[in-house]
């Protein structure tokens, strides 16, 4: 397709420019804006109205001059050259190397917007991933091919948690028979966080398995819209064409959504809640839904997303819409963090929707589903008693309530608060049973007598 070049634009507004008097331009077309004495900028056609072509410039319009702008339309949508040689490399959101090494040359390229997976081609994710973290493995099991966000608040140790997962998670078979890669999409990250992740990859010996797409807080917001798409286009290639198990880490989706709002305001779209565009659900879905497993490929895309809840508000549109799309969420809790509990996972609020098919007999262990149900139920009751005790005093509780409350305390103290230690699923299950042994048998309505007989430790063998 021949390129078309036009000199001059009619409007410049925020990150948008309008080019007139040109025909044959495609919706979504990729373009480059050449400037005098400045590096060129890249863009995309967002809408076309008769002669007017409305364009988003990824590096913004600052210091561009109306008559000086020369727009070169490429006659195709934005593409990314993909190759296994990307592994171990660092790119910006446009796919340009940031590590001083040469560009990626490949015969293979992909449209970065992706195409929806045909639901009849999906394989339902079933293989659990041992993260070594009890509250995740036992209560909110992560499954290969799942998309799971971490809802966090400013100052909570979400990065530390991701670090622990990267360090401990068994994503592939341990015999090295499977290929593994991490694709990291940094969206609006601060330098500190960026360095944290770089160090993490280095320290865990995964650096040579990581592909990084980096958009820092100081980089352009418009470009941030591309970061996850670049990351996922690469991940799809590795997973579905090259049979890699890919762990995609996106951080932080809140920065992405803010960029989305900024652009939508510039486009004068009707806002819905808190000024975010009505299409934010669909837009986020076009990112999150790219996780999964498909037929005729050995690979998988598992997605872990950092999401900072503005003001710790879970009803804010960003966590809200995300929760409606992802397959569960891990919520970090400020009060637990303040009490020194790590990882401060809010067990009751967290959820893994794919857990039900990935645990139990033939997967983890046959007692796992009931054990986790029972821990949930008793912990929830214990927490009720804690609020009651706050009103009437602990001593005023009846015996049963006191037992439940001590259970909840103990649960947080030893089960949630595991620190940086790695626990195998087996160990976590045992710990769960030890905790249950603190309760009278009448409380154990979710575990059958059979399971109790097989798995409940006598007081002497108890780990506690």
């Amino acid at each position, binding site marked *: 397709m021949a390129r078309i070049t036009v000199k001059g634009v009619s409007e410049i507004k925020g990150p948008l420019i309008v080019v007139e008097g040109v025909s044959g331009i495609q919706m979504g077309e990729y373009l480059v804006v050449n400037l005098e004495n400045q590096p060129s900028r890249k863009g995309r056609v967002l*809408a076309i109205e008769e002669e007017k072509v409305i364009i988003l410039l990824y590096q913004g319009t600052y210091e561009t001059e109306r008559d000086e702008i020369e727009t070169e339309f490429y006659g195709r949508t934005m593409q990314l050259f993909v190759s296994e040689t990307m592994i171990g490399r660092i790119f910006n959101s446009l796919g340009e190397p940031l590590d001083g090494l040469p560009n990626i040359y490949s015969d293979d390229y992909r449209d970065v917007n992706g195409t929806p997976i045909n639901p009849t081609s999906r394989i339902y*994710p079933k293989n659990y991933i041992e993260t070594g973290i009890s509250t995740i493995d036992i209560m909110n099991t992560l499954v290969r091919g799942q998309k799971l966000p971490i809802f966090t608040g400013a100052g909570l140790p979400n990065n530390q948690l991701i670090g622990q997962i990267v360090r401990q998670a068994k994503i592939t078979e341990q015999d090295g028979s499977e290929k593994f890669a991490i694709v990291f999409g940094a969206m609006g990250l601060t330098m500190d966080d960026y360095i944290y992740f770089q160090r993490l990859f280095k320290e865990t010996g995964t650096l040579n398995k990581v592909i990084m797409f980096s958009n820092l807080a100081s980089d352009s917001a418009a470009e941030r819209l591309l970061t996850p798409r670049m990351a996922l286009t690469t991940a799809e290639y590795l997973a579905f064409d090259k049979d890699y198990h890919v762990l995609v880490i996106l951080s932080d989706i809140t920065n992405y959504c803010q960029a989305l709002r900024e652009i939508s305001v510039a486009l004068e779209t*009707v806002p819905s809640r808190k000024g975010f565009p009505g299409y934010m659900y669909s837009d986020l879905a076009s990112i999150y839904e790219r996780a999964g497993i498909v037929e005729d490929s050995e690979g998988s895309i598992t997605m872990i997303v950092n999401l900072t809840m503005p003001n710790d508000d879970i009803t804010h549109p960003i966590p809200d819409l995300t929760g409606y799309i992802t397959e569960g969420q891990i919520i970090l809790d400020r009060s637990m963090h303040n009490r020194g509990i790590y990882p401060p996972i809010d067990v009751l609020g967290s959820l893994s929707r794919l857990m039900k098919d990935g645990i139990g007999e033939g997967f983890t262990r046959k007692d796992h589903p009931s054990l986790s149900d029972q821990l949930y139920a008793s912990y929830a009751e214990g927490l009720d008693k804690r609020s009651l005790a706050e009103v009437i005093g602990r001593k005023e509780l009846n015996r049963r309530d006191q037992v439940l409350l001590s259970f909840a305390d103990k649960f947080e103290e030893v089960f949630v608060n595991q620190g940086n230690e790695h626990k195998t699923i087996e160990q976590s299950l045992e710990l769960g049973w030890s905790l249950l042994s603190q309760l009278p048998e009448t409380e154990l309505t979710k575990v059958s007598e059979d399971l109790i007989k097989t798995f409940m430790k006598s007081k002497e063998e108890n780990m506690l």
Partner: protein
Amino acid sequence: MSKTLEEGARIVSIKGSTVQAKNLSSYRMGEITFVGEERLIGEIIAIEREIATIQVYEPLEGLRINDPIYPTGKSLSAELGPGLLANIFDGIQRPLETIKDITKSAFIERGIQTNALDRNKKWSFVPNPDLKQGEIIRGGDQIGSVKETESIETMIIAPPYIHGHLLEIQDKGEYTVTEPIAVIKKQDNRKEELKLMHEWPVRIARPFLRKMPVQEPLITGQRIIDMFFPITKGGTAAIPGGFGTGKTVLMHQLSKWSNADVVIYIGCGERGNEMTDVLIGFPKLMDPHTKNPLMARTILIANVSNMPVAAREASIYMGITIAEYFRDQGFNVLLTADSTSRWAEALREISGQLEEMPVEEGYPAYLGARLANFYERAGRIIALGSPYREGTINITAAVSPAGGDFSEPVTANTKRFVKTFWGLDPTLANRKHFPSINWFTSYSGYIEVIEEWALESGLEDWGRYRQELFTILQKDNELQHIVELIGSKALPADEQLILLIADIIKTGFLQQSAFHPVDSFCPIEKQMRMMKHILLFYNRANILIKNGCPISLLNSLKSVQILKRMKEDVPNENLMQLNKIEDYIHSEMEELGSKYGYRV
């Protein structure tokens, strides 16, 4: 003669999921047009002077100004005939399996055109033996039948608009959906061939003879629904709830276990994996009422969240039209839509592109009217044509309120049009109390109808049990407020007993795990007897309490644990075991009474 660009229908602007075009040969609202060289499918949704706005059911990338527009003269229609069952379609009825065959890839590429129904497959058609040559055929008359799946014999009916004399009808034999099976001479003397399939525009409700009041329950096997907030065949229900509160699981449960004849499941802007879950799970399951494979009565419509938003808007209409087609054959159809909020958002998005004035949170003013229209298509009817047929459509729809706030426009508007409301409660969901239907905010508008039905069906105690359990939960709720302030120790024994019974009801009766092999479906008889046993325990315990028995003794009875576990411990095929539980309760109570010298 080929027209020059200036003359031909062509695109003049492209934005979001719509294009504008001019020079169309006709400007008809709702007309399907092909857009661009790739012939993307679109529908005319607005006309202003010579400019028509077309919503396109596929991504617009790559389209250009001046690209051609091809008219079809048709409105967005559903193909109705054998081949729908056990199939999965996208929002505009393209079969996803066929798309896979065409693309040879795991992804849905653009510009794929395919028929909804397989044109090559032959079906065994059996003509209606009562039909004679020369007889008058009207819309809805039975022409014959095709045994489509193990569960469903599809009735081949004359399309609703037909009127004429029967000229010929084919013999029993194998036919594709487009081969003529009968010929009719219409009043204007023109002939029309009838086929196994016909088409119907999805935005227009199919006609019927008369609406009828609903009369019998849809049995779902879900206790809190069947016993507390039941729905009738032909009824409507909304399931609002924040993310993760259990809407989808509940709709999967309804689709699996309800005693409907045909189930249409619309995945409207939700997760791809959830559709896969159905696709994999249903064929392994058996309809508990007919013992046939579940898939044999199921039709899936999947327009998942990252598929084009315009097709998401259409998917709801596609689903309800297919539902009406089976209703018109005399079936009871259950339509589940997950989620209508995503459909409303699609409306909002398209409305925004039309630059319409939004009213609330960006939603267009006609949101309420569209919802009303949709729910109006549910109900119990007498179908057109002979033989006499009654059919029903149930609509159960998930609503995903922004921020979990039920006062937002979609939930608020939906509430105006549905009779049953299953409000999901995040507090219950967080403690893994599922289904998380809140028993105070939910309601059913069908209680009276079902009470009458229960009386006639040998379930005389249904209303009474229900009321008694409710009363206990109500009292428990009041007591909980007190407990929160002073603890339960300070309550008198009879009130502490209420707390205990309410706990049994919540854990042992209302909670029902969708994933438990036994408890996923609970037969009505078991539901009734579970209530009976709980009340038996309550009444006997009450007498003990009145005689001074301390509550702690009752709390630690084995019966309590048994009552909480009977849902899972008693197999559905062997309800006799419930007798033993009854005996056990009696014996434990008597023992307690005699041991401590209480009168029982």
